[in-house]
């Protein structure tokens, strides 16, 4: 992974000093609440329901063992001994003290980490596929470009105070796993007909209260121009995006209002002036950064391992875990492993300090000392030998990290909701926990098969409910908490936004509602159909009819 040189380290150190002084001035009353706000936000600090919430950047989801140990220590020293991995591959701590944050940043800087631009109206952490560099279907490892873009976006002076937050995702696979179409800018890397690295650029996607999938603004962009082209897009947005209404300030609103053609014309006109400007990426820079992401020193091993095969044959629990949590790898004899942060009945994405230490140790021992955070809020060991899988499983299981539910109904994506977030209409974590308990039967879960369930506590959509096969949204009706259900959303190349099935439900009804949706699917499915396929084939009606009809019958 990327390692800091003196320049990177100096920037992070100077940032700590800058923020230490800003915090001092705020506490001394020299900065007003309003003036301090963007400064703390751009250092990851929200003020939330219980306490400040502190979001630490995990650039494109990559972590070293050493870094994860440090995160665990911070959660222990400054927080309640656990942290929350977010859908944007970052780590959040829910209870730090505002006064402690400069010291926490100083500690992070010792392991080449920071909280720069993790919130606020600026370019945020650039996200990508958690299997970057090892996925068999990968065309291009996007991480070198993601790192180049991270550096470019860090303190970009022209884009320091945008109308609203700005999220960029990059992907280099045929099957998109980075939801590029749900980002302000999405970049899909591919090899063009001349065999050169090229980019398909999407713009104006986003969830939130106006869910919109991105539009293609350029089918083919030579990689050298990634930065200047983004500058052209963001400049048009910076000048013309709305600033009078935070809910209409995202770039998607501008793109929609102008129409993609007009927006594209403005961007291209701007770009004509800055194409080939000094921010054009050089071969040498791509090569330099690319060296940090070279393949691991893999051993030359065979495609099969007798010990592994024997364990799978003799141990059904291990076999179930292999089926759900172990993934294909480019390198013969290696696998990627997902450590589930979704044990039934626990807040999705939470990890205790002890668990973080365990994962860091597993990574050090079995996966070249590196790991990744996925936007599904799990942790990934990317490079494990077949022969080590059983040992990894045993240790992960002891630490509660081996629930074999990846991609299944209980692998719920869920925002912090009303328990933590002051914007919430409703709680989301208890709903996730109740659904997990309703379906707490692994055989049944495996039978239901691949499905994604996403929960957001309000229309800001932090839990990506619009793209969940089942999406649950917390709504407020006369001051009490209700839940609106949609089905048919999907991420990926064939992304879609889910359709609401009807009037909302109380918290107690929710596990039953999900049960009914599943019942309809199980009854109607053809042998090869996943839940989403059945919904797409039949439409919302049969699901809706069954979910609501039952109530009449029982009434």
């Amino acid at each position, binding site marked *: 992974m990327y390692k800091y040189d003196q320049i990177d380290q100096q920037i992070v150190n100077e940032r700590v000093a800058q923020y230490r002084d800003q915090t001092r001035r705020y506490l001394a009353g020299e900065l007003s609440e309003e003036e301090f706000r963007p400064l703390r936000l751009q250092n990851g600090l929200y003020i939330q329901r219980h306490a400040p919430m502190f979001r630490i950047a995990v650039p494109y989801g990559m972590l070293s063992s050493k870094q994860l140990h440090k995160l665990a220590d911070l959660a222990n020293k400054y927080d309640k001994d656990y942290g929350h991995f977010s859908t944007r591959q970052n780590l959040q701590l829910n209870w730090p003290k505002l006064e402690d944050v400069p010291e926490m940043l100083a500690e992070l800087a010792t392991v080449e980490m920071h909280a720069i631009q993790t919130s606020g109206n600026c370019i945020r952490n650039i996200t990508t596929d958690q299997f970057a560099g090892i996925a068999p279907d990968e065309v291009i490892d996007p991480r070198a470009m993601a790192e180049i873009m991270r550096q470019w976006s860090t*303190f970009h002076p022209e884009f320091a105070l945008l109308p609203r937050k700005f999220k960029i995702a990059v992907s280099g696979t045929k099957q998109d796993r980075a939801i590029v179409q749900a980002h302000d800018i999405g970049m899909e890397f591919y090899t063009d007909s001349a065999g050169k690295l090229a980019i398909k650029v999407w713009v104006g996607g986003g969830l939130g209260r106006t869910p919109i999938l991105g539009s293609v603004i350029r089918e083919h962009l030579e990689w050298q121009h990634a930065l200047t082209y983004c500058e052209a897009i963001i400049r048009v947005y910076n*000048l013309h995006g709305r600033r*009078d209404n935070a809910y209409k300030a995202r770039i998607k609103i501008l793109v929609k209002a102008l129409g993609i053609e007009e927006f594209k014309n403005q961007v291209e006109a701007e770009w004509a002036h800055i194409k080939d400007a000094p*921010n054009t990426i050089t071969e040498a820079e791509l090569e330099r950064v690319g060296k940090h992401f070279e393949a691991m020193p893999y051993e030359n091993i065979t495609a099969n391992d007798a010990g592994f095969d024997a364990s799978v044959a003799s141990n059904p629990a291990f076999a179930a875990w292999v089926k759900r949590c172990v993934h294909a790898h480019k390198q013969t004899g290696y696998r990627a492993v997902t450590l589930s942060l979704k044990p039934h009945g626990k807040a999705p994405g939470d990890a205790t300090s002890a668990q973080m230490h365990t994962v860091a140790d597993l990574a050090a021992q079995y996966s070249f000392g590196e790991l990744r955070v996925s936007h599904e809020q799990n942790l990934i060991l990317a490079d494990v030998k077949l022969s080590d899988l059983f040992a990894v499983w045993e240790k992960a299981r002891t630490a509660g990290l081996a629930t074999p539910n990846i991609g299944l109904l209980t692998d719920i994506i869920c925002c912090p909701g009303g328990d933590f977030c002051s914007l919430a209409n409703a709680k989301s974590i208890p709903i996730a926990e109740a659904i997990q308990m309703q379906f707490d039967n692994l055989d049944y879960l495996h039978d239901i098969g691949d499905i994604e369930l996403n929960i957001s506590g309000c229309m800001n959509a932090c839990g990506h409910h619009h793209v969940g096969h089942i999406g649950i949204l917390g709504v407020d009706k006369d001051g009490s908490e209700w839940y609106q259900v949609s089905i048919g959303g999907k991420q990926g190349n064939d992304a879609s936004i889910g359709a609401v099935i009807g009037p909302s439900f109380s918290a107690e009804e929710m596990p039953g509602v999900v049960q009914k949706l599943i019942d309809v699917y199980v009854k109607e499915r053809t042998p090869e159909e996943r839940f989403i396929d059945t919904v797409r084939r039949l439409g919302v009606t049969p699901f809706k009819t069954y979910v609501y009809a039952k109530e009449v019958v029982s009434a």
Partner: protein
Amino acid sequence: MSNLIQLNNNTAQIAENAWVTAQLPASNVEERKQAGKVVLFKLTGEETITDTQIADTVIPASGKVIVPLSVFIARKELLLSRITNGEIGVWLDTHELLADLVSCQPDLNALPIIAVHLERFADGRIFSLSTLLRTRYGFKNELRAIGDVLRDQLFFLKRSGFSSFLLRADRSATEALASLSDFTVPYQGAVDEPRPVFTRYNRPI
């Protein structure tokens, strides 16, 4: 103590303010919201300047004056000799159009100073405006940030091409000087240093 910071050859110092800023009188017309209209996004919720306001703007009869863009456009004929004498600068709000300035005054470098006024410190349009003034329109003279100018934005303002900063009246320019050097080596090219770090340094692997 002056509240003006000026950059001379990249050294920042406190300087006396030689310029008076002419202000538009308050409008008695109600604020007009123009929601929805696409081309007017940038004007949404911002006041439209009236002809009366333009006519009533007081421009001191002598000395160096920075006049509002709308007044400059409407009353330029009357200011021609003072423009030639280098006594007139122009200021604009962040929602105003550079194109309007340039079509009225194609030779921007005849103006010794252009200022951009910040109504709210968090309005980042100012950075794109200054970047365009420097890189697209080739403006070489003093470019000044005025209005809600605070020390924690100075570094970005400097990198985006501003050469002077009139700090908000209740803040100390002397204390603010330190923030201009918050970072030693920025990553990306911008107005003050167009080369990104990867072409300026031979970075180790």
